[in-house]
C-alpha cells in the first residue's frame, strides 16, 4: 500500500531524470557537430568508441570506419604512439605530443595530439579522450620562417665576408701608405739621388 502510494512520485522523478538526460545528450550532440575540434573517446585497449564530426572531416574516415579500430592505425610513428598510450594511463593531467596522422587518402599530415585519461570514482582507468589538431599550416609557416632566416643568414654571411675582404684591402693599403709616408719622411730628411728616383718609381 505504502509502495503504491509512492509509485507515481518515483515515476515522475524518473521521467524528470530522463528529460534531463535527453537535454544533456542533445547538448553533447550539438557540441559534437559544432566544435571544429577532432576528438574521440578511446577505451583502455586503445579502441575507438566514438568520434566527433570534425574527426571524420579531418581523417576522411566515416564514424563506422573508425569505431572499434585501434587508435594506432591513424599514426605513422607506431612505437612512439605505443609509448604515448602507456603514458596516458599514468598521468592525471593532459599530455601532448606531435605525431604524423595518416589520412584515408594516404596523405600524411603533422598533428598535435592531446590526451586526457578518464577514471572511475574509484580511480580505475576506463579510457581516455583524444584530440587531434592539424598543425600542417603552422609547420609550413615555421618551415617558411626557418627558410627565410637561413636565407637572410646566408646573405648576411656573404656581406660580412665582403666587408672583411674590403677591410683587409683597406687596411693593407693603409699600412702600405703609412710605410711609404715614413719612407718619404726619411728621404726628405736625407735627400739622395737614388732614393729619390726609387721613390718616384714606387709612387708612380
Amino acid at each position, binding site marked *: 500500500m505504502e509502495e503504491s502510494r509512492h509509485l507515481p512520485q518515483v515515476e515522475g522523478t524518473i521521467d524528470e531524470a*530522463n528529460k534531463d*538526460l*535527453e537535454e544533456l*545528450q542533445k547538448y553533447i*550532440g550539438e557540441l559534437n557537430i559544432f566544435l571544429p575540434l577532432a576528438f574521440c*573517446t578511446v*577505451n*583502455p*585497449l586503445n*579502441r575507438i*568508441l*566514438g568520434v566527433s564530426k570534425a574527426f571524420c572531416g579531418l581523417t576522411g574516415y566515416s*564514424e*563506422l570506419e573508425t*569505431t*572499434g579500430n*585501434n587508435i594506432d592505425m591513424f599514426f605513422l610513428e607506431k612505437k612512439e604512439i605505443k609509448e604515448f598510450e602507456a603514458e596516458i594511463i599514468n598521468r592525471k593531467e593532459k599530455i601532448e605530443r606531435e605525431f604524423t596522422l595518416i589520412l584515408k587518402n594516404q596523405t600524411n599530415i603533422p598533428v598535435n595530439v592531446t590526451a586526457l585519461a*578518464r577514471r*572511475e570514482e574509484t580511480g*580505475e*582507468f*576506463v*579510457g581516455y579522450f583524444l584530440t587531434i589538431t592539424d598543425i600542417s599550416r603552422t609547420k609550413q609557416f615555421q618551415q617558411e620562417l626557418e627558410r627565410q632566416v637561413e636565407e637572410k643568414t646566408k646573405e648576411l654571411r656573404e656581406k660580412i665576408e665582403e666587408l672583411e675582404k674590403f677591410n683587409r684591402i683597406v687596411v693593407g693599403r693603409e699600412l702600405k701608405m703609412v710605410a711609404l709616408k715614413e719612407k718619404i719622411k726619411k728621404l726628405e730628411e736625407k735627400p739622395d739621388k737614388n732614393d729619390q728616383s726609387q721613390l718616384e718609381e714606387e709612387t708612380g
Partner: protein
Amino acid sequence: MFHTHLIPEEIEKIKNLEGQARGQTIKSALQTIEIMEGKEGLEKFKIRLKEIGCWLDIYEDYNKIKIFAWYPMWYDILPIVAAVDLFAWDEEKLKQFGAYNQRVSFFEKVLLKYFISLDIVFKFTPERWRKNYSVGDFSFAAFNEKEGYGILQLKNFTVHPAFCHLLLGYLISANKFVVSFKEMTGEETKCVFRGDPYHEYLIKWTK
C-alpha cells in the same frame, strides 16, 4: 537465406508484443538502415511503413527521437522486420545491421566503464541490455578466456527470429571493442524459435 513476409497477422503479432524499448534502439535502427541502404533506401523504407499502416511520426527524423524515452516494443521491432522484408536481408546482413546498431549507439559510446576488458563486457551485458529494453533477462552463463569463449543467455524475450541474428551481430561487435584477436565469431546455440526455452549465444575468439 533468411527472409520474412510482413503479412497483416505478423504485424498484429508484433504490435501486441509486451515491454518497452528505449528511443535509442529505434534511432539506431533507422540510422543503420540509412548507413546500409543510403538516404534513398531510408525514404523507400518510410514509404513502405506507410503502405503497411505502421507509420509513426517519430520515424520521420531519427535525430529527433528521444533516446532515453521508453516506447512500446513494436515501435522498435516492426521497423527492423519491415526492413528485412523490404531489402531482403539475409542472416549476414542482419548480423551487420546488429553490429552497426551497436557502433552508432550513444549509450555504448558514453559507457566507457563497460568496455575495459572482455570479461567486463560479458559480465555487464545484462546491465547494458536493461538500458535498452524493459523486458528480457540476459544472463552471463560462462566465460573462459583461456579457451576463448563466452556464453550469454537471453530469457523471456520472444519478439521475432530476425532479432536473433541482429543481436548476435550486436554482441560480437561489442566484444570486438576490447580485443585485438584475429578472429571473433558467434552463433546462437539455442533459440526459442527452434523450440529451446531461451536464446543462447556462444561467442568464440582465437588469438
